[in-house]
């Protein structure tokens, strides 16, 4: 059996038995939902429905209901898209990359992080769809055999690459997540009393019986999927960044974008995981499974990726000056001193300065501080995308076309609406799906559980 050094902090606190693990995860699903859940769900649903209303108005009337203009053709729509895709990065990174690196601490968070990923990608996918002037013709971006003669998609366009990248990412993440859920659905199927729930979980669990052969295949599939998903973590945001990097617009046309976007995505994704996890461990009383050590690990990732992003920002500034390109230099001068300087400095404060506080062990182990920073980081990352998109195109080559972007109520409504929808999905997930991977948790219980560790320790 795998042994773990005693000086390593345990991953499961207290004395938990296998049965405890099952109970702790399943009980919130089997019992009645707390009042708080209903309140939160109602709020999220109202906000989400408002967003849906705004989307319907947009589709019925035209893109003009947004604040875009002849100069700024993308603003909140694509900002939100990139932001949500970024958030959607943590889940797969945690489950795939950390799986390959055998980071056991990932087990406490991977299930909900993956769920978050999927919902975030849903939200992200919404924006490229609704930002189209003619959504009803949107299927033309798919290379479908068609009756239009030789007319096909344009494989030169990064937007097309986006279509492939996002859809691949979504499908692989979804499969990966679902495969992991199968044994846990089976556990629920075996426990629930309500015949309807039993029927549902039974369907969802695909007839899992827990035989050794199944476990063997389960492990294998997980590993294969992790292998497939790992490059996706890097490819998706690289490709998203190509939307900008392959253009001719100063401030967009930057070769540093792919690694910088990936780091930024992990950064914001982890921050979002932190936000959700800190709430969930309290609400579902999972303090034993998700505790300070987990938070600290994640904070370290946030700190590192935050620093990468910071270096990227500074590199951009340096290169814009070093390149000697007039337009490029001005694009960056405009960023930090132009009419959108407030957005630039918000971004700098939130993304570069605030994560540096994580160098202090006390702060990175403080749950309250972590919670605040996790929100700050996501605000910062939204601004980063806004800064890249809007401050680059609002003043590009010809000063005659320079303009400003002012969001309308619909811009705001749709953005807030997607946050509402995201939480609707997430709350439903938390209510009906096992939020921790029961089976996987059990694999580390005996090695990394506090009481077992102590036992082994005392035996020596």
């Amino acid at each position, binding site marked *: 059996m795998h042994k773990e050094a005693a000086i390593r902090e345990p991953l499961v606190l207290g004395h938990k038995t296998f049965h405890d693990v099952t109970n702790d995860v399943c009980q919130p699903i089997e019992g009645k939902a707390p009042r708080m859940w209903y309140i939160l769900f109602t709020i999220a649903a109202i906000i989400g429905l408002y967003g849906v209303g705004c989307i319907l108005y947009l589709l019925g009337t*035209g893109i003009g209901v947004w604040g875009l203009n002849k100069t700024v053709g993308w603003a909140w729509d694509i900002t939100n898209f990139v932001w949500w895709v970024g958030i959607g990065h943590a889940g797969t990174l945690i489950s795939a990359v950390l799986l390959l690196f055998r980071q056991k601490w990932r087990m406490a968070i991977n299930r909900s992080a993956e769920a978050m990923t999927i919902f975030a990608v849903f939200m992200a996918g919404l924006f490229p769809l609704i930002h189209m002037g003619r959504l009803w013709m949107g299927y033309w971006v798919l290379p479908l055999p068609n009756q239009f003669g030789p007319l096909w998609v344009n494989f030169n366009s990064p937007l097309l690459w986006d279509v492939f990248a996002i859809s691949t990412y979504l499908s692989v993440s979804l499969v990966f997540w679902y495969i992991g859920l199968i044994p846990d659905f089976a556990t629920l199927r075996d426990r629930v009393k309500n015949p309807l729930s039993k029927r549902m979980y039974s369907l969802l669990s695909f007839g899992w019986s827990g035989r050794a052969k199944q476990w063997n295949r389960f492990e294998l599939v997980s590993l294969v999927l992790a292998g497939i998903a790992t490059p996706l973590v890097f490819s998706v945001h690289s490709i998203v960044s190509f939307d900008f990097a392959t253009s001719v617009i100063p401030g967009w046309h930057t070769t540093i974008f792919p690694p910088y976007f990936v780091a930024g995505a992990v950064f914001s994704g982890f921050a979002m995981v932190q936000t959700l996890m800190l709430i969930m461990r309290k609400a579902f009383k999972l303090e034993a499974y998700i505790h300070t050590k987990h938070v600290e690990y994640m904070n370290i990732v946030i700190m590192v990726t935050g620093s990468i992003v910071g270096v990227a920002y500074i590199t951009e500034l340096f290169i814009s000056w070093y390149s000697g390109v007039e337009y490029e230099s001005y694009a960056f001068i405009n960023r930090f001193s132009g009419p959108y300087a407030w957005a630039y400095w918000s971004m700098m404060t939130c993304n570069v300065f605030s994560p540096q506080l994580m160098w202090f062990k006390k702060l990175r182990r403080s749950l309250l501080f972590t919670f605040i920073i996790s929100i700050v980081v996501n605000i910062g990352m939204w601004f980063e995308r806004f800064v890249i998109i809007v401050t680059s195109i609002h003043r590009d080559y010809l000063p005659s076309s320079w303009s400003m972007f002012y969001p309308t109520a619909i811009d705001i409504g749709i953005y807030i609406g997607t946050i509402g929808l995201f939480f609707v999905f997430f709350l439903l997930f938390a209510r009906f799906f096992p939020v921790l991977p029961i089976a996987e948790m059990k694999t580390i219980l005996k090695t990394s559980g506090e009481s077992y560790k102590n036992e082994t320790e005392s035996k020596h």
Partner: protein
Amino acid sequence: MSMFENNKGVENMSANQDYFETRVDMSAEPISVDEFLADEETRESSTNRRDFLKFLGFSVAAATIAACEAPVTKAIPYLVKPEDITLGKANWYASNYYDGNTFASIMVKTREGRPIHIKGNKEFGFGAGAISPEVAASVLSLYDGERLTAPLVKGAESKWSDADTAIIKALNSIKDKGGKVALVSNSIISPTTQIIIGEFAEKFGNVEHIQYDAVSYSALRSANEKSFGKAAIPSYDFSKAEAIVSVGADFLNGWLLSNIYRAQYATNRKPENGNMSKHFQFEANMSIAGANADVRGMFKPSQYASVLAAIAEGVGAGSIPGVSAGDAKNSKEVQQAVAALKAAKGKSLVVCGENNEALQIITNKINHYLGNYSTTINLNDAVNLFQSQDAALNTLVNNVIKGTGVDGVIFFGANPVYSHPKGKAFGEALGKLDLSVSFASWNDETAAKCQYVCPDHHALEAWNDHNPVASIYALAQPTIKPIHNTASAQESLLVWMGNANRSGRESTVYYNRIRQVWEQYGYPASTGFASFEDFWNVSVHNGNTTPEVIVQEAPVFAADLAGLAAALPKFDGGVELVMYTKTSIGVGTQAGNPWLQEMSDPISKITWDNYITMNYKEAQDAGYNVVMDQEHGATLAKITVNGVSLELPVIPTPGQTKGTVGVALGYGRGENGERIGKGAFKTKEYGGYEEQDGKRVAIGQNAFKFVSIANGALSFSGSAKIEKLSGTYPIASTQFQLTAMGRASIVKETTLESFLNDDEVGYNLPHKLMTHHGPEAVSKFDLWKSHPVEHIGHRWALSIDLSSCIGCGTCLIACQSENNVPVVGKDEVRRGREMAWLRLDRYYKSEDELAIGTKKEDFSFTRLEKNIDENPTVVFMPMLCQHCNHAPCETVCPVAATTHSNEGLNQMTYNRCIGTRYCANNCPYKVRRFNWFNYPSYKKFTEINPSQDDLARMVLNPDVTVRTRGVMEKCSLCVQKIQEGKLKAKVESRPVVDGDVSVACADACPTNAITMGDWNDTGSAVRKASAEKRAYQALEEVGIKPNIWYQVKVRNHDNNELRERQKAVAEKRRHDEARFADHGHEDNHEGGH
């Protein structure tokens, strides 16, 4: 019966009457579409089983069709094809345009019998067929849904016979009692109309014909009478003037025959000829002429006299008694002007814009002394426009208000209730008269106060003749049958005299009369025609007679200078107001025309409003808002002149003389909600008109209220008081940025001296990359595979001469008209969503630049952006799709909706577009326009967009798709015209040559600044232009290989600092290149070993 059936078999070939009759009978069978389309009321029979099946079938079909994207709702084919109309083929007719202010020789394009586009008659027309935005836009006014459709009697629509009877009765009773009738018209330049009016006056005895122009030049006439004994406006020839000095005259926009002067002016502004005219402008407002001037001096109107006096003294014409040359004498600009005038003696021209006799006499004196009357000014070839009798009209206005001395008034082309300073009182008093008649096409301010409105045809519906200047007679021919139940005013006069009968829309009364007059007077005076018919046909074909040569002769200057000082304009020492006309709205004749309302002013770039222009620094110091955009409006101010106040937004304007403000005339039309056109009123954010007391709210304010009457002449400048108000006002501007930010590859400018003597690398630095092979042009490098357009087939290209472009904006309207560009209204323009395919970028010089696009050694971006020169130079740059051969838009479209044609065009496939807007973001020129809403149907645009109006829709060019919501659009380089030109050449079995293919903007340009052609044709003008020393491509270094070349702006001024810098740049570049070339050579050499 389908049209295919008719093509069937031999019976068609030997078709006899019987055959067609059977056919007709068959089509008359009762199973027709009408039956199931009919209204509930009109459908008599009850629904039977077969009908039910038909309904069912129709509903299914309708539902299916409705599910498709754009159902064709109406398609009316010709049953019998008119002989001269071929579907899909345009017919062009020569005609002439005259609206009381502008005269232009035009070509009218008609499609299937409807006029859809107007361009200049460059081949035969008067003044090289130069037109203006108003002329080009008048085709839309033809289809204005608010034009009167029938005569009005006391405000109610009625029959012509009723109106005629009542008017004849009233005229006779006035005649019987010995009363007086006044016929108030604009300046009549039609010989036939003058004859008819003469006869009318004779018939009814006491008839006074008063000619009245809203913007009057009466003082110019009277000054000429005093100076030379001839109350005439001479013909000016700006093309012959080597030195031009204008004191407050915007001769490139609004002043006299400015559209003609534009063409003349430009012919002498081509640096390739080795010389250019030198143009000095002394003025208060930043005018179009001022923006083009080589040297511009800022003066207040009160200083114009001393400027003229200083010039008179300087050139040696002597001092003007009582008029001090004052400070103007010390002005550097005035001194330069004096020197230039002296050098160009006999080939110069001095003009003054003030309607003041004394100033005009001084101007005459200078011109006379310089000997210009035998070269640039022709007093014998008098201009017949602008006959305004200000004094007579003032008397009439006072009489009508008093209620004495006049019993009836007939208005013909004049709208004094709107444009006269006492218009309001005059309008109210009109009701007291025995008779008031208006010939207005709209129920305008004056017409609304009249008992009878007898609507005249639109100019495009009627025959007319014109005698704009003494040397030329012109004919206007109708290009469409009258749309409404209107009649030409001349016919009405003839009918009232009892000399003609009404014969409806087909009436030839006035036509016959014109022919008669031309036969009687014109034909005998002409030579070289076999018959009158021959003479007439040639005149109609050309649009005018061959101009007569009228010899200039130097007149004797006889004016007494002694009393002039007393007759100068008076100012009270406060802020001075200068009224001007915009190149779009003019005096407001077509205020209801949405194209003109939405055309952005070349200087201020503002649409849909008039405003106070104020010196930039002064406004800034006084706390007016100088940074304006979508959310930040302009500060409002109250401006008071002679006790009349208006509230207007203040626009800080670089180049405005300190202590002066400008306000555009022609706005505030329809103040009482009169039906003067759909586009004349403010609309709300979600559509519908803004309303106040149940009336629509006019756009802008009527500055004619500020016009004063001094020495019997209308004066368009005066003293004003400005009071800052706390509120702001939303401004719809298409450009907020003032400078070009010192960017060197957008606008390039140099001096004439530099151009003639120095290395072109200095002012037209080519973008090169220093490679190991030596310096190489950017165009040598490709990331993508080249489109095979460079030496195969056609490659359409444009050359735009920034030196010739004077910024009149005629191209903007021409483009809009040719390409069905939607009108989006003030709110959308404010949001930065104007749809113009072609725009006119305007850049002011910053203090941190030597010339626009050339940064000083020590500059900062913040200063560049904000510190506009006190008296900046201005460059206009027409900006449109550059049809890049490596278009950044093409690579990013996910669905290949924008692609490259094998003729070098960047083409937009609307049907394929899904509207990601990625192409627009990636366009370095920002020329792509997105359909944010469904402009042809969304309620927000009902009032303004012609495509939402059944009548106005007739103006749409059937060759160009009306774009739907959610798709991108942009300049297509008039691909439909290219196709037409290619087909023409093909039919004639010859290669396409210059002139076969053109674009609407180039056709419209009065200065021929735009040249279009096939770049692959080595003999084409555009190919040659692209190889000129001045040719460059905007943003060439981005590597996108545009198909549009610009020509460096050349200004004829002394800018030594700029010249030295450009010399140094050239030297450095030559040196660098030599160094890199050597180095590169060595590298190659080493590589060889």
